[in-house]
C-alpha cells in the first residue's frame, strides 16, 4: 500500500511531468525540422500540446492509482464531483473506448467481449470496455482496477446494462444514479429521487474509501465544475464568428477535460488558455479551416475512427463543422450548478441533460444551435450503436429541412466500431451531400 502510494505520487508529481516535458521538447524539435505540410486547415491550435499532456498524464497517473487512492469508474454523465472531492482517481470508460477507436483498436479489443457472448448489436463503447477488462488490452498501458463502479442513466439506459456487466467482471460494487427521463418539464419527486441517490452514493463512496466528505471541498469542486462548464460553453460559442477559429471536429477532442476532469482547477486553466487562443484567432481572422465556404452542424457522437479523414475531406471543400450537439451537451449545465446547494443543484444539473430530455427539446436545441452558428447544412450521424441518440433523427432531419431550409444528411455509421461501417460508402455519401451545395 505504501509502495503504491509512493509510486502514485512519483508518477503524478515527478515522472509524469518529466515525461510530458520531454515530449514537449521532442515535439518542438520535430516541428522545427518538419517542413510545414499543405493542409486545408488553419494553423494548428497551440493548446493541443497542453491537451495532450493533461490527458496523457491523467491516464499515466491512473496506472499507479489502484492501491494508492480509491478508484471509481464512472459514466460520462455521472456527478463525479463527489468522487473528486473525496480524492478518488476517476476513470471514464467511455472516454477510454473513444480513445481505442481513434487508435483503431476496437475490432481487436471488442472481439474478446463478443467471443464471451456479447452481441455485436450492442453499443460499441460497451463491447470495447468489456473486451478490455477481459483481455487487459488497452492503448493506455493499464487501467487501474476500480474500488467501485458508478453509473448515471442520464445519457441512456444502456450504460446501466453495460456497468452491471463491468461490476460482475470486476467483482466490485455498483452505485447508481437513476435519472427519470424528462418529458417536458421535470417533476419534484424525480429531482428528490436523484438527490436521495446522490446521498446514497456519497455514503457508499465514504464507506469504500474510508474518507469523510468535506463540505467545503465539495463546494469548491462544484464551483470549479460550474466554471469549467461555462468556460467550455464560451470556447464553443466563439465559433459563431466567421470564419470559425476552430472546427467542430476539434471540439470532439478538446471536450476531454470537461468530461474527465470536470471540477478540477487543471480543467479550468486549460479552457481559459484555449479561450484566449481562440479569441486571438478571431481577432486575427484565422479560421479552423483555410477557406470556410459552408458551415455545418454535426449531430450525435463522432465517428471516432474516421474523424480525421472526414474533417480533411470536408475542409478541402470549404466545409466546416462549426457546432455539434454532442460537444454542446457539456456546456449546457453551467447555469444550473449552484455551489451553495451542491446536491440539490446537482440533481437538477444531471437530470436536465440533453439525452435525458424529450425530442421536442432536442429539436429546439438543434435549431437554436443551427441559428446561432449560422449553419447552412447539417449531418446527422445515425449511429447503429447508440439507439437513444439516434431514435427520432429521421423526423429531426425533416423538420430541419423544412423549418430551417437547410440541407441535411442522415449518415449511417457507428461511433467506435469500424467493422460496422463501409468507409467508402460513408465518404461517398458525404461527398454527394457536399456536391449538392453547388446547385
Amino acid at each position, binding site marked *: 500500500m505504501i509502495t503504491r502510494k509512493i509510486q502514485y505520487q512519483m508518477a503524478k508529481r515527478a515522472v509524469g511531468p518529466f515525461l510530458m516535458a520531454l515530449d514537449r521538447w521532442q515535439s518542438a524539435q520535430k516541428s522545427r525540422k518538419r517542413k510545414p505540410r499543405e493542409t486545408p486547415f488553419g494553423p494548428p491550435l497551440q493548446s493541443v500540446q497542453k491537451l495532450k499532456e493533461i490527458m496523457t498524464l491523467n491516464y499515466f497517473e491512473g496506472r499507479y492509482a489502484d492501491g494508492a487512492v480509491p478508484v471509481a469508474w464512472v459514466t460520462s454523465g455521472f456527478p463525479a464531483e463527489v468522487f473528486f472531492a473525496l480524492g478518488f482517481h476517476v476513470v471514464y470508460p467511455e472516454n477510454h473506448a473513444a480513445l481505442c477507436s481513434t487508435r483503431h483498436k476496437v475490432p481487436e479489443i471488442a472481439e474478446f*467481449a463478443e467471443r464471451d457472448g*456479447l452481441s455485436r448489436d450492442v453499443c460499441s463503447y460497451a463491447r470495447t470496455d468489456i473486451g478490455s477488462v477481459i483481455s487487459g488490452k488497452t492503448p493506455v498501458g493499464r487501467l487501474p482496477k476500480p474500488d467501485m463502479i458508478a453509473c448515471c442513466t442520464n445519457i441512456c*439506459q444502456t450504460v*446501466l*446494462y453495460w456497468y452491471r456487466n463491468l461490476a460482475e467482471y470486476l467483482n466490485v460494487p455498483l452505485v447508481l444514479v437513476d435519472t427519470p427521463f424528462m418529458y417536458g418539464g421535470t417533476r419534484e419527486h424525480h429531482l428528490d429521487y436523484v438527490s436521495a441517490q446522490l446521498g446514497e452514493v456519497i455514503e457508499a463512496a465514504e464507506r469504500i474509501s474510508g474518507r469523510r466528505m468535506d463540505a467545503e471541498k465539495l463546494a469548491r469542486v462544484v464551483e470549479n465544475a460550474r466554471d469549467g462548464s461555462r468556460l467550455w460553453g464560451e470556447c464553443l460559442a466563439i465559433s459563431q464568428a466567421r470564419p470559425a477559429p476552430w472546427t467542430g471536429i476539434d471540439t470532439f477532442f478538446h471536450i476531454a477535460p470537461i468530461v474527465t476532469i470536470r471540477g478540477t482547477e487543471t480543467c479550468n486553466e486549460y479552457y481559459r488558455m484555449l479561450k484566449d487562443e481562440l479569441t486571438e484567432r478571431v481577432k486575427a481572422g484565422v479560421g479552423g479551416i483555410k477557406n470556410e465556404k459552408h458551415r455545418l452542424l454535426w449531430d450525435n457522437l463522432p465517428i471516432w475512427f474516421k474523424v480525421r479523414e472526414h474533417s480533411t475531406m470536408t475542409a478541402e471543400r470549404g466545409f466546416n463543422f462549426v457546432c455539434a450537439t454532442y460537444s454542446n451537451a457539456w456546456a449546457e449545465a453551467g447555469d444550473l450548478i449552484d455551489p451553495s446547494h451542491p446536491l440539490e443543484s446537482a440533481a437538477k444539473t444531471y437530470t436536465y441533460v440533453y439525452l435525458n430530455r424529450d425530442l421536442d427539446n432536442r429539436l429546439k436545441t438543434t435549431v437554436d444551435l443551427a441559428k446561432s452558428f449560422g449553419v447552412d447544412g447539417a449531418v446527422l450521424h445515425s449511429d447503429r450503436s447508440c439507439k437513444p441518440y439516434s*431514435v*427520432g433523427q*429521421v423526423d429531426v432531419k425533416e423538420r430541419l429541412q423544412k423549418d430551417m431550409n437547410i440541407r441535411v444528411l442522415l449518415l449511417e455509421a457507428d461511433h467506435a466500431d469500424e467493422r460496422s461501417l463501409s468507409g467508402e460508402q460513408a465518404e461517398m455519401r458525404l461527398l454527394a451531400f457536399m456536391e449538392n451545395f453547388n446547385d
Partner: protein
Amino acid sequence: MRKEYIDRQKREFGRKVVISLPIHYPKEILTALDVLCVELWGPPGEISGNQAGRIQTYVCPVVRKALAFIAGGHASEADALLFPHTCDSIQGLASLLPDFGGWNGPVLRFIHPKGERRASSEVYLVREIEAFIAQVETLTGKKLEPARLSSAVKLHAEIDALKLRILKLRRNIDMRDSELYAILRRGEWLWPEDHMAELKELASKISDKPQKKGVALMLSGIVPEPMDIFDVLENAGAFIVADDYAAIGRRISSSSAELPDNPLQAVIERYFALPPCSTRSSDLAGRVEYLTGLYSQNGAAGLVLHNVKFCEPEMFDVAMIKKRFAAMNSPVLYVETELEKQLSGQLSTRLEAFVEMASKGGESE
C-alpha cells in the same frame, strides 16, 4: 375478435381503453379505475405503411412495429397510450409519437425505478405511482377509491397466484404449449376478471400426474413471438417446463400471499417482488442465480434464450447467463426473432437440432 371485445368493453361497461407498450406498469391502478389495458407487442408480420421508416432498422421491431401501427391510425379505439419506461427505444418512441406526430391523444407515462431496491427507489416508486394515479384519474374523470384499489390488488394477486400454480404444474396439463401460452397471453388484453375466469378453467385441467413427455426446456426472452416456436419445439419432442419471458413469467409476482393491507403499499411490494428482469436492470448476479434456480427446480434439460433482435437490455445479460449455464454443463441455445409471423426454416432446424442435443444432455451451441 379482439376489436369486438374492446368495443364491447367501452359500450357495455363504459370503460376507457389504454394501449400500453411493454412491459412493467401498475395494472392494478388501471383496473381500479375501470380502464381496459391492451398491450401492444407487434403486431406480428411485416412492418407496413410509410410510418415504419421513421425509426432506423437497427432498433428493435417491437418499437418499430408499434410506431407503424399507432402512427398508421390503427390505435383509434384507444383513449390514451401508456409508455412504461422499459428501455431507451421505448423512451424514444414515447417522445417521438406525441412530439413529432402519429398520436394526438392523451399519453400516460410510468417511469419505474431501475436497479435494486434502495431506500431512495422505494420512496420514489410510491410517488411515481401516485403521479400515475393522478394521470389515470384525469383520463377517466374518476377518483380512485381505496376500496376499489384494494379489490384490484386482490384480483391481480389472485391472477398471479393462479398463473404461478399453472406454470409450476404445467407438466400435469394435457395441452399443447401453444394453446397454453395463447390463454396466458390473453391477459395482455382481456379485462382481468375475464382473464381470471379463463385461468380458472385452465387450472381445473391440472391433473395429479404428469401428462407431458419429452425433453423439458426452459425458455427465456422478452416475448414468445412468433408463437409457432412452441409447435416447432413440441413437434421435435420437447415441452416447456419453465418460463422466463418478460411478457409472462417475469410479470408474475411471488408476493401475492403476504401483501400488506395498505393497497398502495401492496402495489409497491408486488413490484419489488417481481422476478429479476433486464428491463428493470435487476442485479445481474441475482438474475443468473434466479434463472439457474428456476431451471433446476423444474428439472429442465436445456435453456433456449429467445431474444427479440436488437433488444439491448436482454442482449447484455446473455453472456453471463450463457457462461453460468455452460459451467453447469446445461445446454443453451440463443436465437433471435423479429416478431415475424412464422419461424424461418433455418431457425426451426436449429431448434430441432437443439432438442435432439438436449435429449442427449449435450453441450451448448
